[in-house]
C-alpha cells in the first residue's frame, strides 16, 4: 500500500447547529430546488437560498432556526427520500462532528459557492449566514492564503469553458 500526500491550503467553512443546511451533490438545479421546496413546505422553514458550489453541486440554507434534533430530522428526511448517498455521508459527518458545515471559501480548483436562487423569507438564518459568509470571505482574502489570486471564479470558469468549445 502506498499513499502520497501533497501540501494544500485548509478550507474555510461556516459551522453551526441551528441552521438547516443541505449539501446536494450530483444533482441538477431543478431537483435541488424541488427538494428545497418540499422541505420548506413540510417543515415550515419560511425561506431558503441555493448556492452553487461546483458543477451539479448545490448548497441550500433555510431561514428558520431550529433545534439540533430538528436539524438532523430535516437532513435525514431529505437524504432518505432523495436516495442521495452523498447527502447520507453528509448527515453521518454531521452526527460525528455534532454540527453541520458548509464550505464558503474556494477549495482547490473549485470557486467559492455563489447564490443562484432565493425564495421566501430571508431575514433570520439566511441573513446571518450571509453576514458570516462575508466575514469568512474577507478573512480568506486578508489572511494570506497563498493561492487567492490564482483561484478560479465562476465567471472565469464559464469563460474558459466557452473559449475551449467551438462557440
Amino acid at each position, binding site marked *: *500500500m502506498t499513499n502520497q*500526500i501533497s501540501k*494544500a491550503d485548509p*478550507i474555510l467553512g461556516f459551522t453551526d447547529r441551528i441552521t438547516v443546511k443541505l449539501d446536494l451533490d450530483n444533482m441538477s438545479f431543478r431537483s435541488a430546488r424541488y427538494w428545497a421546496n418540499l422541505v420548506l413546505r413540510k417543515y415550515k422553514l419560511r425561506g431558503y437560498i441555493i448556492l452553487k458550489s461546483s458543477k451539479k453541486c448545490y448548497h441550500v440554507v433555510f431561514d428558520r432556526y431550529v433545534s439540533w434534533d430538528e436539524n438532523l430530522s430535516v437532513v435525514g428526511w431529505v437524504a432518505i427520500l432523495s436516495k442521495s448517498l452523498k447527502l447520507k455521508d453528509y448527515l453521518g459527518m454531521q452526527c460525528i462532528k455534532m454540527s453541520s458545515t458548509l464550505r464558503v471559501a474556494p477549495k482547490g480548483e473549485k470557486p467559492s459557492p455563489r447564490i443562484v436562487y432565493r425564495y421566501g423569507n430571508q431575514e433570520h438564518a439566511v441573513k446571518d449566514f450571509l453576514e458570516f459568509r462575508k*466575514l469568512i470571505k474577507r478573512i480568506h482574502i486578508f489572511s494570506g492564503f497563498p493561492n487567492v489570486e490564482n483561484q478560479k471564479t465562476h465567471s472565469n470558469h464559464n469563460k474558459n469553458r466557452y473559449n475551449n468549445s467551438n462557440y
Partner: protein
Amino acid sequence: MPKRKPISKQQTEAIRTYIKQGYSANKIQKKLQSKGLGIQRKRLLAEVRKVKGTKPQAYTQRYTPKKYRRVTPRARRPVYSGKHIAVYRYATTSRYRVVAKKLGLPKAYSARFEFYGNGKDLAKAVHLALTGIVPRWEKPHVECSARAFLTNPYKYGEKGMWVDKPNIES
C-alpha cells in the same frame, strides 16, 4: 440642574384642607394656581399621596399606549452566537507520520479547527492556523475561541502541515 424650591408651609396646608374637603388632585392644582401657589404636578401628586397614605401605581407603562412606551435597549449579541468558522482539511505532523508508519495508517488524518469570537480574533486565528499549526491526531476536531487559540496555540495543536486527501493505492 437647578434645585427646585421645597414646598412651602402655605402650600402644604392648602393641599391638606382641600383633601379634607374631598377635592381631586386636578382640582387642587387649579385652586393652587388661582391663588398664586402653583406647584409642579409631580410634586403635588407625591404630596397628595403622602397625606392620603396611598402608594403609587405599580407598572405605570401599562397605562401608556404601546407606541409611546419606553423600549428597553436590545441586548447586544454575545460573541458566542453558536456560529463558528471551520478550518478543515487533512493534516500531517512528523510525530503522526512515525505512528502511521508503525501501524500502517494513511499518512494524513482529517483535522479541523472550529473558531468562534469577534472578527479580528477570527482573522488572526485563521492566519495562525494557516502558518502550520494543525490539530493533534489524538484530538483532530478542536472547538475553541479564537482568543484562547491566539494566546496559547500549542494547547490546541502542534506544528504540522495541511495536506490534500491522501491517495491510497493498494
